[in-house]
């Protein structure tokens, strides 16, 4: 994929940051975009097919799996999947009870959906960056972003839904009190109405924006770092040593990062077998050296280790971000339910 020169590294990164877009191109009509420029030309009425497919797919997966658990729910001691689902539901229930003080049956299920759905979408980040795009490239789909939450349209769309709920419940619960809150709040005098209105509107609009952009920013930065580490695999091919020439002879100039993933798995597998005492140390060193000579020297191993360590750190980030989105949604809805 990417070579050692900066130009193609940039191409590689930009290729990974391009969604699969379906829209109406002014010259070619309805169809998929074949380049970033075509995607831009399609303008506003174009749809990110990959984001939609992955997010809706993961959402249905969540619904189906939890429905299966809900149907089997019983009063006895739960086991397996049912136990896990009960754990999540009780955790969310506890969080909502802590921070939501109004009376609304919809908030806890909403919080559960938001938490699990965002967690599943973020979880796609832990798949190797090239795995699904390079598999799909074989079937002729050339752009693919598998993490829906790295698409601002998805995160801001979810934040917009939360915002609509906030405004709806503010009007429903507070009625004219909501208008009063917007116009009379910091300075309780009629002359300050325009200033109050401006300040409160900015405060109100900032909530969905920060909600959506926080999730997007975190996932985008995480994905960016995965992609940058992935460019290191390709740097291995250009590193010369034994590998550069041999590698090019065996597999051609263009090799996908999937190949280095296989090498990495092989090296780790041999080391693991050595730890278990099934392969002698001498053989392990020889096998590792052989794999690395084919795969591109230390870069394959170093890149793999970096991917792995960033992925381990990222597990914390993806869970935390899903949790924060959920808690803030509950807090905002709780503020909408506070009747003075």
């Amino acid at each position, binding site marked *: 994929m990417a070579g050692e*020169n*900066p*130009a193609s*590294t*940039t191409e590689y*990164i*930009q290729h990974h940051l391009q969604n699969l877009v379906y829209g109406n191109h002014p010259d070619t009509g309805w169809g998929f975009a074949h380049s970033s420029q075509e995607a831009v030309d399609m303008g506003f009425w174009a749809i990110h097919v990959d984001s939609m497919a992955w997010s809706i797919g993961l959402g249905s997966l969540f619904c189906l799996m939890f429905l299966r658990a809900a149907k089997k729910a019983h009063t006895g001691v739960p086991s397996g999947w049912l136990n896990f689902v009960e754990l999540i539901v009780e955790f969310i229930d506890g969080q909502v009870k802590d921070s939501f003080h109004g009376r609304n049956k919809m908030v806890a299920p909403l919080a559960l959906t938001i938490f699990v759905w965002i967690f599943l979408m973020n979880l796609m980040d832990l798949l190797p960056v090239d795995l699904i795009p390079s598999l799909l490239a074989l079937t002729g789909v050339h752009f693919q972003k598998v993490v829906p939450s790295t698409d601002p349209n998805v995160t801001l769309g979810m934040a917009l839904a939360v915002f609509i709920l906030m405004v709806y419940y503010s009007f429903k619960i507070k009625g004219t009190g909501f208008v009063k809150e917007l116009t009379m709040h910091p300075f309780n005098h009629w002359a300050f109405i325009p200033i109050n209105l401006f300040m409160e509107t900015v405060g109100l609009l900032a909530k969905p924006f920060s909600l959506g*952009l*926080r999730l997007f*920013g*975190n996932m*985008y*930065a*995480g994905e*960016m*770092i995965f992609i*940058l580490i992935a460019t290191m695999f390709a740097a291995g091919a250009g590193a010369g040593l034994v590998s550069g020439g041999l590698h090019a002879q065996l597999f051609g100039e263009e090799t996908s990062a999937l190949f280095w993933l296989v090498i990495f798995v092989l090296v780790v597998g041999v080391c693991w077998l050595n730890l278990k005492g099934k392969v002698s140390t001498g053989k392990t060193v020889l096998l590792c050296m052989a794999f690395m000579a084919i795969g591109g020297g230390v870069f394959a191993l170093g890149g793999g280790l970096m991917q792995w360590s960033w992925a381990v750190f990222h597990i914390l*980030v993806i869970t*935390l*971000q899903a*949790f*924060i989105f959920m*808690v803030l949604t509950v807090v905002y809805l709780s503020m909408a339910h506070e009747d003075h």
Partner: protein
Amino acid sequence: MELVIIAAAIMLGLGALGAAVGMGLLGGKLIEATARQPELGPMLQGKMFLLAGLIDAVPIIGVGIAMYLIFVVAPGVGA
């Protein structure tokens, strides 16, 4: 174009600085509070993680933008 690198450095450095101070305060206060009232520990820890995520968001977004600037907007500067 070299200024882009400087911009990325400032972005990363100041973002990390602010977040480090924030995290330090947060962790210190958590330990102080837990030492004073150990029974509140689990509740405070949950709140601490929530705030840690909020603090973490700012520098990590900075890292994302900085990486984009270095590797996409100004690739190969100084190389």
